[in-house]
């Protein structure tokens, strides 16, 4: 932590007023939670006063007992109002940390906010708290105070109510006052004169609920992955590199990368990591932040890689080891902006609305989940397998596209450009004519005729040196327009995405028309000469193709001996480097879903992503 002291004790000397020691914080930010804890552990005050509503004290105390699990206090805005307010009790919030540490050091607790009114809404634009890693806490606070918030009567009343409570504290007991930075000056001013007790509100009811583990990323101020790190860190208060946002962000992206590789078989390229770093930096800068938040990380993951990676980032950020779905409290999913509490609908707003708080990026589809682990595996039939027809159509279309592409390559190889003599052949070549303008000649193009058509298509995504693709099968077309196919893939039923629906990635495949002619390629002794799975597929392609040309798409061209074999069979291999094709299309194509019976086709679309 360069430049930042281990304890802020010396930093805040200017904020000591008699027995009161003010500790202004940015709500919800981890760096301030850590700073509050350091302060309280260093000074061990007799009283800790926090800017929280006094009437919510019992609910907070109950929620503190539940930590490290998240809790949410939900209450109606007033009486029978349809609108509700929710307050998340989360580990990395400085107010929660103040209460928690106060309990640990045996300090008295004082809840400062008056009951009569809700907290006034103040513009919530703080400098990024990550800057505390480079500057001192009092520098941060003083810099913020140079541009104070505009005040109104509502803010003054609220500050007066808090000041009234502080004025009633025992002056013999050192008291640390933890309050929001944006209310700090208003409270200091209100402390200058004696205050009257604030009005009380009668109809105060609230409820403590357990937020569902899936919704934590949407409701928490800091994403759960970061809070989990904080929870480990606060116990020891050791090396705070553990909670360095950038480092945690890096670890989050690496974890998402690992999951992405396991789920899709695709690795993140170096250029994508670099691009994401630049893009998240820019997104954060436009928000006047130093480090991107979870929303921007997810946006960048989608923009630079794809939706699946974005989902993995979101999913990893949402992981929090301690949150349990089954607790004595009612569990609610607060992902939406509304919630049904005892069958009563409430439209929710956060108590401390944060401008930059955004929900999951739009269009990021949720994936279906099992009701209990192993639910889908229990439904495996095991009697037969079949493909998913929409994927068949996509792959057939791609086969057609590759055949056309191969023809274009062959045609382009057969174009000749020559000076015009007697015939313009297939038209004037403008570029060549202008290039040789000084000669005063006209150049013409001549396409030579293409003999033979394109038949079999082999696509190799991965040559499989590590033997990852152990599922090798040959399946026959179901109708005259569907190719026979031989492929090697990962084991589909090791990775279930729905009941009896397995997801695999192709390592490579062979497609050939007309259908219903192919024997089991993988056990055909004629191809035992092949040294690898791609070679076996290529041998079969040369064997089964009824047309002269065979397309071979891979990262590397086949061994030269295959040219001889092809020539011997009167076939020609057209090699297309895989890098010449669209990576987005290839990614879509690479996934194959295997269904364990024809019945599954009816429900498959609900489970595929």
């Amino acid at each position, binding site marked *: 932590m360069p430049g930042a002291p281990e304890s802020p004790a010396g930093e805040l000397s200017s904020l000591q007023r008699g027995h009161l020691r003010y500790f202004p914080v940015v709500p919800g930010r981890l760096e301030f939670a850590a700073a509050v804890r350091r302060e309280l552990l260093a000074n061990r005050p007799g009283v800790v006063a926090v800017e929280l509503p006094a009437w919510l004290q019992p609910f907070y105390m109950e929620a503190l007992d539940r930590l490290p699990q998240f809790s949410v206090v939900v209450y109606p805005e007033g009486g029978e109002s349809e609108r509700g307010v929710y307050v998340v009790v989360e580990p990395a919030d400085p107010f929660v940390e103040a209460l928690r540490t106060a309990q640990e050091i045996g300090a008295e607790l004082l809840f400062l906010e008056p009951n009569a009114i809700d907290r006034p809404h103040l513009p919530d634009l703080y400098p990024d708290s990550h800057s505390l890693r480079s500057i001192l806490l009092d520098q941060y606070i003083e810099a913020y105070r140079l541009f104070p918030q505009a005040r109104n009567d509502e803010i003054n009343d609220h500050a007066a109510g808090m000041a009234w409570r502080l004025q009633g504290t025992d002056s013999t007991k050192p008291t640390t006052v933890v309050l929001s930075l944006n209310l700090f000056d208003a409270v200091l001013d209100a402390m200058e004169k004696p205050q009257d007790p604030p009005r009380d509100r009668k109809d105060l009811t609230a409820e403590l609920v357990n937020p569902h583990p899936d919704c934590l990323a949407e409701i928490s101020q800091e994403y759960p992955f970061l809070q989990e790190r904080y929870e480990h860190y606060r116990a020891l208060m050791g090396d705070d590199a553990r909670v360095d946002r950038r480092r945690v962000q890096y670890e989050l992206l690496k974890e998402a990368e690992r999951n992405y590789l396991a789920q899709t078989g695709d690795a993140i*390229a170096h*250029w*994508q990591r670099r*691009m994401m770093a*630049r*893009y998240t*930096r*820019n*997104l954060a*800068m*436009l928000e006047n932040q130093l480090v991107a938040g979870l929303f921007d990380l997810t*946006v*960048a993951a*989608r*923009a*630079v890689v794809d939706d699946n990676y974005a989902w993995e980032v979101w999913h990893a950020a949402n992981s929090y080891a301690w949150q349990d779905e089954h607790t004595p409290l009612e569990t609610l999913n607060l992902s939406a902006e509304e919630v049904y509490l005892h069958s009563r609908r409430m439209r929710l707003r956060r108590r401390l609305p944060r401008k930059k708080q*955004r929900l999951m990026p*739009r*269009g990021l589809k949720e994936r279906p989940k099992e009701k209990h682990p192993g639910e889908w595996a229990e439904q495996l039939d095991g009697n037969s397998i079949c493909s998913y027809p929409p994927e068949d159509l996509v792959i057939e279309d791609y086969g057609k*596209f590759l055949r056309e592409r191969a023809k274009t390559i062959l045609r382009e190889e057969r174009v000749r450009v020559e000076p015009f003599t007697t015939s313009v052949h297939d038209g004037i070549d403008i*570029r060549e004519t*202008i*290039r040789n*303008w000084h000669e005063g000649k006209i150049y013409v193009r001549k396409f030579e005729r293409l003999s033979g058509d394109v038949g079999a298509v082999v696509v190799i995504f991965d040559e499989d040196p590590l033997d990852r693709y152990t599922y090798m099968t040959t399946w026959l077309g179901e109708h005259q327009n569907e190719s026979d196919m031989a492929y090697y893939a990962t084991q589909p039923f090791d990775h279930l995405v729905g009941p009896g629906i397995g997801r695999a990635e192709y390592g490579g495949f062979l497609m050939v028309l007309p259908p219903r002619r192919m024997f089991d390629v993988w056990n055909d002794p004629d191809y035992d000469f092949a040294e690898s799975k791609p070679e076996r597929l290529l041998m079969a392609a040369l064997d089964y193709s009824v047309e002269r040309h065979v397309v071979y798409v891979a990262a590397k061209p086949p061994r030269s001996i295959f040219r001889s074999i092809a020539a011997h069979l009167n076939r020609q291999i057209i090699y297309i480097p895989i*890098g*010449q*094709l*669209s*990576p*987005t*299309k290839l990614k879509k194509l690479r996934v194959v879903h295997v269904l364990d019976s024809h019945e599954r086709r009816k429900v498959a679309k609900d489970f595929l992503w």
Partner: protein
Amino acid sequence: MIVEIDGVPLHLAHPDALSVKWVGQEEVMRQLLAAWLVVDERDIPMNPRLVGKPGVGKTTLAYAAASRLSREIYIMQATVDTRPEDLIVQPVIEGPGQLRYVASPLVTAMLRGGIVILDEGNRMSEKSWASLAPLLDTRRYVESIVAGIKIQAHPLFRLVATMNDDSSTFDLPEYIHSRLQPQILIDFPERDEELSILRENLPFAEDKMLEYVTDFLQQAHNNEERFTVRDGINIGRYAIKLMTTLDARADFTHAVRFSIDKVLGEEALRYARRP
């Protein structure tokens, strides 16, 4: 305007001026502006592509974002016939034995520090994209084979490509794909945003009618139809014209339903509320 590069006079193109306004969906605007941001003179801007269904407002967004930066804007429409020389420098015969070199809107933007919108870039072949490869990485230049010159981009030059996610497209190979990053997806707008867009484009329409068209569009989006707000604007515009010619007492829903039928076909009526 003529500039001279390595002794070759180049005739520049004119910037475009459209009257468009981006309504709602500030988030995608932010994403686009973030892609263009540079933080240091050693930093280089990204070359984003806007992807979405036809009619969701990709070009409008690109234009509106470029307008916010107060720069000259050049729109270049890509087609299947767009060749490398169309993108860079075109030779035009000026007289007997005389050639004039004309800079494309893209090269003009490069020279003048403007912003170029390469519209419907996915309709352009790989060969044409390949000529832009050095422009899209750290080199930031293009080479004109016909004029025999190398043109370096101004530091303020920015590029954005728009692409439809339909099938009438060429495939982008990996080396182009990795240079056209980030990919910003423009989805259908939320109900409130869609209503605002319709209101902005049809300021003379009654609120009731705009609500009706918005409901129709939202219903279609929920059913994964490809109808967009552009269709909604056309429907509204036609319905208003119909209402001025029909009996003024006629219910607007009849006019809108008739308009839906004519603009999108009878099948689309299933998403429209019955009168």
